[in-house]
């Protein structure tokens, strides 16, 4: 009797909403852990750059926001029939180009804030933060925005609603691509 009560209580909690939120979150946070693992791999290089921990959260947040809004715009345009599901067309090219302007502007603003905070709070001037921000933002945007466009249109062509899937997808890939781009930028500097 007690087991039956527990079974029905559990069934009431683990409904469709629970399963959808749970599965999306598992995917999203697993990607975050993988990104954290990659950070641990380059830890010795990160520690050589003061202020990088101030820059990092904003940079990863930026990646998710840019790709998320790009895939949302594409998804909506596909849903309402504004565009056809073609990979190369004026709408996708214009939006792809626009993301570069957005990401460069914000990444350099973040680098400026990290530079100023590091200088005034910790007494260290780190001009290389700007170069790291520039390289990491360009590389990550090239990869991540391409992935966002290709995946959104691919999902739509197969009859799925990209708006239901792209959220956790761009969060996961954004973190991993962001950290990999940062790795490349630090290695080049």
């Amino acid at each position: 009797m007690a087991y039956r009560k527990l079974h029905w209580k559990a069934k009431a909690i683990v409904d469709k909403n629970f399963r959808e939120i749970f599965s999306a979150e598992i995917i999203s946070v697993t990607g975050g852990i993988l990104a954290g693992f990659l950070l641990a791999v380059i830890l010795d290089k990160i520690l050589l750059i003061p202020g990088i921990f101030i820059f990092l959260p904003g940079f990863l947040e930026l990646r998710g926001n840019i790709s998320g809004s790009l895939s949302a715009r594409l998804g909506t345009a596909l849903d309402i029939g504004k565009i056809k599901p073609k990979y190369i067309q004026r709408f996708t090219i214009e939006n792809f180009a626009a993301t570069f302007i957005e990401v460069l502007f914000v990444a350099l603003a973040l680098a400026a804030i990290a530079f100023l905070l590091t200088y005034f709070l910790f007494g260290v001037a780190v001009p290389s933060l700007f170069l790291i921000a520039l390289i990491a933002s360009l590389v990550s945007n090239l990869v991540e925005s391409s992935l966002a466009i290709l995946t959104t249109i691919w999902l739509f062509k197969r009859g799925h609603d990209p708006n239901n899937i792209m959220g956790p997808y761009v969060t996961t890939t954004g973190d991993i691509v962001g950290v990999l781009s940062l790795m490349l930028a630090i290695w080049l500097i």
Partner: protein
Amino acid sequence: MILVAASILSTIGGIGLEAIKQKVAFFIPLLILIPALNDMIGDFGTIISSRFTTLLFEGKIRGKWWKSKELAKEFGTISTISLFIAFYLGMLSIFFSLLQGFKVNTIEILKVVAISYILTASLVLTIFFVSIVSGLFVYKRKKDPNNILIPLTTALADIGSLILFSILVWLLF
């Protein structure tokens, strides 16, 4: 503008991380946790805000929100999920740090899981409270709560998760 503001707010949280950089560097599972915790709390901010707004528009929440069965169910669902995911995060960060050859003892594993749980529970509760108070305030003024709640809770999640994480690491390690 919102994009710039959201990213800048995360940078403020990064000040806390920079201050505890040496402790995080010394204990790898903490570093592995950072992006995932930040993502998770941000996601819950969006989920709680949008679901609360939906309940408002459906008329399922009136003046006495604490008597709403639907709100209680939402709270139960999201709290349960967040606590499962917090445990999953803690254990996965330990697993990946072991893959890197980093050794941990039982006390350290408990500390990592405790940080994950305390941070998740505190912020999910705070976000729920902020969503209810702000959402009702905005709704009564005939505005769409989504426009205010989502940026507000996302900003709270971003700054809150990193600063609370920094405080917990400073206290426990």
